[in-house]
């Protein structure tokens, strides 16, 4: 059995989760402080991919990154690199789709943060970076962790936009989800079933680890 789709899915999901982890957290942090109007507009724009059909996201991405479109053409001309139909093209698709998950959960977590802790840190002379990483993030870790894991799981399952921007090339751009579709289409039911089981196993492990982390945290808090 060719394990490439597993490896490819994991690296795409892993890389996009790392990118979106930081992007989502910083957007959440700064947008929470923005004036109300800006906040309202950005909120709609940034959450949009969550409710758009993946094919619409794929279409919009192709409109921007396609070799004959604005950015795609420019990158192709300047660096000689095509942004579509490579394995890492899928990272664009998964990143856009999982961003709202990370952004939303991080914002929810930040909104629950007791701001006086940050003020206390400031009056004690702690730098804002220290307060962010050593006080705010630990305080919000539960929500942020949950958001990260959910984002990873969603990235792993991304199909629509990925298939449009990265296509399906066995051994090059194939992911688990595109492979399952391809195998089912070609009537290779046995192999399709194997990949389905693998996918379900990974999802189960991910969700189980979320639950365990949450439980650990809760018992830690309850001691109060």
């Amino acid at each position, binding site marked *: 059995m060719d394990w490439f789709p597993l490896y490819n899915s994991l690296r795409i999901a892993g890389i996009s989760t790392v990118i979106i982890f930081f992007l989502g957290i910083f957007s959440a942090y700064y947008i929470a402080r923005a004036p109300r109007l800006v906040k309202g507009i950005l909120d709609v724009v940034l959450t949009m991919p969550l409710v758009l059909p993946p094919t619409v996201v794929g279409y919009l991405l192709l409109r921007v990154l396609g070799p004959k479109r604005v950015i795609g053409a420019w990158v192709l001309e300047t660096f000689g690199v095509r942004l579509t139909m490579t394995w890492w093209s899928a990272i664009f698709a998964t990143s856009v789709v999982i961003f709202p998950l990370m952004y939303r959960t991080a914002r929810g977590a930040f909104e629950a943060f007791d701001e006086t802790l940050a003020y206390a840190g400031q*009056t*004690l002379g702690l730098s804002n970076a220290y307060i962010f990483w050593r006080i705010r993030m630990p305080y919000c870790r539960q929500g942020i962790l949950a958001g990260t894991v959910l984002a990873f799981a969603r990235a792993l399952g991304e199909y629509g936009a990925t298939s449009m921007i990265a296509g399906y090339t066995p051994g090059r751009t194939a992911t688990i989800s595109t492979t399952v579709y391809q195998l089912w289409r070609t009537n290779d039911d046995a192999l399709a079933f194997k990949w389905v089981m693998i996918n379900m196993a990974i999802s189960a492990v991910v969700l189980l680890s979320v639950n365990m982390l949450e439980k650990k945290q809760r018992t830690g808090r309850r001691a*109060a």
Partner: protein
Amino acid sequence: MALYADIEKRLGAFHLKVRLEAEDHVLALLGASGSGKSMTLKCIAGIETPDRGRIVLDGVTLFDSERRINLAPQKRRVGYLFQQYALFPNMTVAQNIACGVRGGGKKDARVREMLAAMRLDDAANKKPYQLSGGQQQRVALARILVNEPDVMLLDEPFSALDSHLRFQLEGEVRSAIRRFGKTVLLVSHNRDEVYRLSDRIAIMRAGRIETVGEKAAVFADPKTRSGAILTGCKNVARLEKRGERLAYVPDWGMTLHTGADIGEAASIGIRMHDIHPAREGRNVQRCAVVEVIENPFSLTVMLRPIDAPQAVPIGWEVEKGAWTGADEVSVCLPPENILLLRE
């Protein structure tokens, strides 16, 4: 260590306009909730930014709207004790205190020293949620003291506590103030607390300081109606001027001589314990006893003049042993104890 602040800030309908000065003593801001006490502290600490004004601490300008100076809270050397203490929940007691140590070097030694001084050695490795309220407050104070600020701001330090614990922790705060030895600003709405902890008192109402002075002077002459109420005067009513030192009080149905010129005063007040029984003399009133309310260690006798059955009763505080029970009584409201109050 002198602190000077002259600030103005608008927040919706609320308008804060405060000028205060303090040097090496405890200045209390006494006011009802929403009078702008905490906002004043937050502006001094740099957590909130005033619209206009100037804040100078020990010769260093922290804020000056005209010169566009606005130091970050980190650079202000202002210690702030928050209502709920704001201990970092993910850190141990020792780590919390270590956060307060400025500069590198002998950090551990400083923390150990402070743990010992605040009797927190046994709690050093505990997390804040494992501590009692008293210990939490000691950690918060230790974290500020180790930070060596130039001024300490105490924001309703006992508001979250029941009365017994309150009294105990007040002692802790008093000794922390003594250890600190520099300017302290205390915010509270509790007059007893304020009287015991501070040297000077500023009475705040609706974003302004109405009265400021030595604490005994402010209690003796609170000058304003809200000042009288905040310092615990229960009998307050409007007056109608009948002479330079003669006032009619319609609510009470009494005409009273005052110890000082009425001037612009619009209200009158008398503390419950300043009233005493008397047969004759100035301001002696023959009163009916409307009600006797029993307090733990005293009685509050509610009185209404015999000839004014519609009047609002005034309270008179009597020691339990001194009250024998009566339907009528003659009391004196001594002119020198009458408070003349502006709006």
